Each structure stands twice: as C-alpha cells, then as structure tokens.
C-alpha cells in the first residue's frame, strides 16, 4: 500500500520525534527538581551563607562556609586519588584488555560501580578510620575516590577504544613508540569524552552523603589540613533536611543550590580546559 520509501520515511520521522520526546521527558524531572530546589533555596543564599559557620537552632544567621571548603577539599582529594589511577587503568583496558587479566579487571570495574556508597564508606572506615583512630578528610577523600574509580576507568576505556585506529597507525608510522602514541594521540583525541565521564563521576561523588558519615564525619568548626573531620555540603544538607526546623530546611535547600552551582562550575572549567588542549577536530 505505502511505497517502501514512504514507509522508511515514516519510520525515520517517528524515531526522530521519539528522540525529541525522550529529550523532553528527560528534562521534565530536571526542571521540576531545579525549580523545587531553587524556590526553596534561593531565600537562604546570602553573604552569611558563604562566610559564617553553622549556628544552632534559634539563632539567626549562620552559614555553611566550612562545609563549602570541606566539599572542595574532599572533591580535590577524590580527584587526586581517583582520576590518575582511573584513567591509567582505563588505558590499560583499552590497550591490553583482551587478555584474561584485562577481562577480570573490566568485570571488577563493572561490579564495583554497583557497590552502594554506604558499603564503600564502611569499607574505608575499617581500612582508614579504625587504623588511625579518628575521622579525617583524608578518609573521606579515599572513600569518594573508590566511588569514582569504576566510572572513570570504564569511560576512559570505551572512549579510547573508539578512537579510529588510523590515528594510532599514523603515529606509529612516524616512528612514535606505542606508549607515546597512546598518550599523545589517542588520549588527546578522546579527552573531551573522558572529561565528560570524569565530570559525571565528580558530580556524583560531590553529592554523596553516606560514605562521608563514617569517614569524614563532619565538623561545626573549621577543619585544618586533611587529618581532621570536616564538614561537607551533602552531609550538612542531609542533617539539616532531616531536622524539624524550617530555618534549617531553608539552609539545606540553599546548600543544595550551592552544591549544584559548584558542580556546574567544575563541569564548565573541565570542559574549557580540555577543549583548549584538543583544538578544532
């Protein structure tokens, strides 16, 4: 009845509209959540929020300055411990992943991405906190990096595998050693994609609460260095959100908004950094 071409065209239009619909569907909850967070949190954002320490209930003012710094510290540590090993492990899997050992590593990365964050927290608790006999930002950073590792590794691997071999062959043909070809050519080409994977992992760990409860603990005061318990935005959000007090709820929403903005900032800066190195394709 319909010509073959008409049927093909119809399928094409159908699928394309479905994809657009999918994008719209994906954005609806985002808009809803953003609206919810912003409408409740914008009232709590003030200069005091960024400069003062938390105050107990009943006292006006107070902020989450120490939590903001704490989150920056923890994210920095997580990136330090999580990105280099993750990217290098991903490179190993992309280059030598066909070996039996490689298959096991890939498998374990997939399994590890499914470990609940609280289990990782408990694990790092027994590994670090029980040994040092105190909570610390260092332990928190380790816990977050363990959460980041699988995502970074697998994303690096998949994206490196997709770089066309012709690029590598060209480099090898010029006499570049294999390792140099991987680092300078393949990695650089895949860098923007890897940056996406890394930023996804960072965004996730920046908002994790459960692993921090047993490792970084929290702190109503400033924490110096890396060996003391430190406040962090997600833990504060959790503590305040589950309290009965309206003013604490407002601060929790404000903190959620600030956390989102922080991750946004990291995201944008990572993109900028990577884009510069790669240049126009």
């Amino acid at each position, binding site marked *: 009845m319909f010509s073959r071409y008409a049927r093909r065209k119809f399928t094409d239009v159908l699928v394309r509209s479905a*994809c657009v619909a999918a994008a719209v569907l994906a954005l609806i909850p985002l808009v809803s959540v953003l609206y919810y967070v912003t409408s409740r949190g914008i009232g709590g954002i003030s200069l005091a929020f960024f400069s003062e320490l938390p105050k107990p209930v009943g006292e006006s003012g107070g902020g989450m300055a120490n939590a903001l710094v704490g989150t920056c510290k923890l994210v920095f540590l997580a990136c330090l411990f999580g990105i280099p090993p993750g990217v290098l492990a991903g490179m190993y899997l992309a280059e030598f992943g066909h070996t039996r050992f490689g298959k096991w590593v890939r498998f374990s990365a997939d399994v590890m991405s499914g470990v609940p964050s609280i289990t990782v927290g408990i694990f790092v608790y027994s590994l670090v906190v029980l040994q040092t006999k105190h909570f610390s930002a260092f332990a928190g950073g380790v816990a977050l990096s363990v959460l980041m590792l699988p995502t970074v590794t697998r994303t690096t691997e998949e994206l490196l595998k997709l770089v066309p071999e012709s690029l590598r062959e060209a480099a090898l043909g010029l006499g570049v050693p294999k390792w140099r070809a991987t680092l300078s050519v393949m990695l650089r080409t895949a860098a923007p994609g890897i940056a996406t994977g890394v930023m996804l992992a960072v965004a996730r760990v920046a908002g994790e609460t459960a692993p921090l409860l047993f490792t970084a603990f929290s702190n109503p005061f400033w924490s110096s260095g890396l060996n003391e318990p430190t406040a962090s935005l997600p833990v504060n959000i959790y503590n305040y959100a589950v309290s009965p007090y309206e003013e604490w709820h407002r601060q929790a929403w404000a903190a*959620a908004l600030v956390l989102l903005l922080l991750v946004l900032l990291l995201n944008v800066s990572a993109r900028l950094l990577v884009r510069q190195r790669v240049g126009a394709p």
Partner: protein
Amino acid sequence: MSVSQEVSPLIRPRSKILTRFGHELNWGDFVFRRVTASLAMLMLAALAAMAAAMVYGSAESLSKFGLGFVTAQVWDPVRDVYGALPFIYGTIASSLLALCFAVPISIGVAIFLSELAPAWLRGPVGFLVELLAAVPSVVYGLWGIFVLAPWLRNSVEPLLARTLGFLPFFQGQQRGFGMLAGGIILAIMITPTISSVSREVLRAVPSSLREGALGLGATSWEAVRVAVLPYARSGLVGAIILGLGRALGETMAITMVIGNRSEISASLFAPSYTMASVIANEFSEATGSLYLSALAEVGLLLFVVTVLLNVVARLLVWRVGRLPEGGSL
C-alpha cells in the same frame, strides 16, 4: 646540523630490551604497560578486599542461616531471624524497572544530542541532562516525597488502575510511595550517566561511517541504526551497565520513596525494600553481632546480584551477534 635535529622530537632511538617473544621493546612501552597494569590491579585488589571484608563480616550469619538466608522472607531483628529474599526481589525489580524507563529515554537523548539536534541546542540540552547527575541523592529523595509521590498518588496510579487494572502490576492500594515511585526516581538518577556516556560514544564514531550510509540513500535514522549503533555497541552497553550499577547501589533517594516494607508483591503500587536501603537504614543503629553479620551478608548478596546481572548483560550482548568492536574497522 645533523639529520636527527630536523626530525620530530617524538621519535626516539629504540632500545634493546627484548621481551620473551623476541619483540624489540622500547623501555617506554615496558614501563607504560607495567604501570597501567598495576593500577588496573589496584581496582581488582580493591574489589577483592571489599569482597573479603564482607565475607569475613558475614561469617556468623553465613554459618547460622546458610542458604536459607536467600530464600527466607522474614527479617526480624528482635528475634534475630533474618531472611533476605524480599530485599533481593526489591533490588532486582526496582533496578530492572529503572532500566526499562531509563534506557530508551537515555539512548533517545543521546541520539538526539549527537545526531538530530541543531548545533545551538546541543550544548545547553546536553549540559542540562548532565546537571541531573549533580543533584544530591538526598534532594531527589525529598523531591520524591513532596512532589513525585503525591503526583503518582493523585494522577498516575488511579489512571493506571482504571485502564490497566486487570494486570496484577496495577492492583492494590495506591499510596504514591512504592515500587513505581522507586523505579521512576532511579530512572531519573541513572539517565544522566547512560545518556552522557552514550552521547560521547556516539560522537566518537567516525563521521565517515554515517556519511557513507547517508550517501547510499539512507534516512538519518537508518544511518544511525545501520552504521553508527553497531560500531558503538560496546560503548553503549558499557554505558548501560554503568547505569545499572548506579541503580543497584543507590541508597538514599530510593529508600525515601519505596515504602520500605519487606514484602514481595507483583504490584507496582506496593511498597518494597532494596538491599542497599536496608543496609543504610539499619547499619547505624544495629548492635549485636548476628544483626551486623546479617547486614554484612546482605551487602555480600548485593555483590553477588551485581555480578550475576553483569554476567547476564554481557551474555545477552554476546548472543545477539558479534560484530567488530568499535575501533577496529
């Protein structure tokens, strides 16, 4: 002056290290392989350490309940009787439900962003989808309690009950909180993971493939289906497995909306309980070695379930048909 100074600085004279297969190996390659291998080993070691810690922690519970732990349905800390079947069901069902919602949407978004969207729209929309990943779990949970659950209770569940109520999936008391709410929240949380990684994967496919198909007269969807998707298959599967992992391990948000009742029911309206939730809920307060040991065993079971689902996913991909993996065309 001499020839070597005009040559690219990337070129180095080869060394004389010989591997056991007689290949001449640059010391740089040697170091590179060993360093990356040891870091890859780190991943394996971390996992093995976690598994070992969990087995050690659950020793008491393993010896007391044995296999009965997996089949028993009663979880009673007062009487020190523990059975994990409802949690296993809750975890698997909620994760699979989340995948059902999230995979089509995420792949659709990825295709939209990499193929269909005009250039000016790609940046903002892609960025917004990634923003979903930045929202803390707690915030999703609270949004779920105050926005999603009431909406489900008032609009969606009555509609489903009216139209599809003959199916066992849509029967029972409509509270808003339950498996459906849990599945939806998980789907929202894993969408950015699957869609962002998929988008990068699709973008990395060489345009020559796409252009080749288009040049042969394919519609854009056909070009994607025939040329891009097979090439990107491994990457897409990897993205989905990452999403699945996130769904299995999600704790905070899902426990706030899923109703937390250890019962097995086919209905999507019924409350359920996941393994990650029970650990998060009861670990802080648990005292008593058998109780803690039972919780550790639940963690171990979650491990096992993750492993099994991963194996199944890989097998499915393998059975569907082996095509050359990306990068080797």
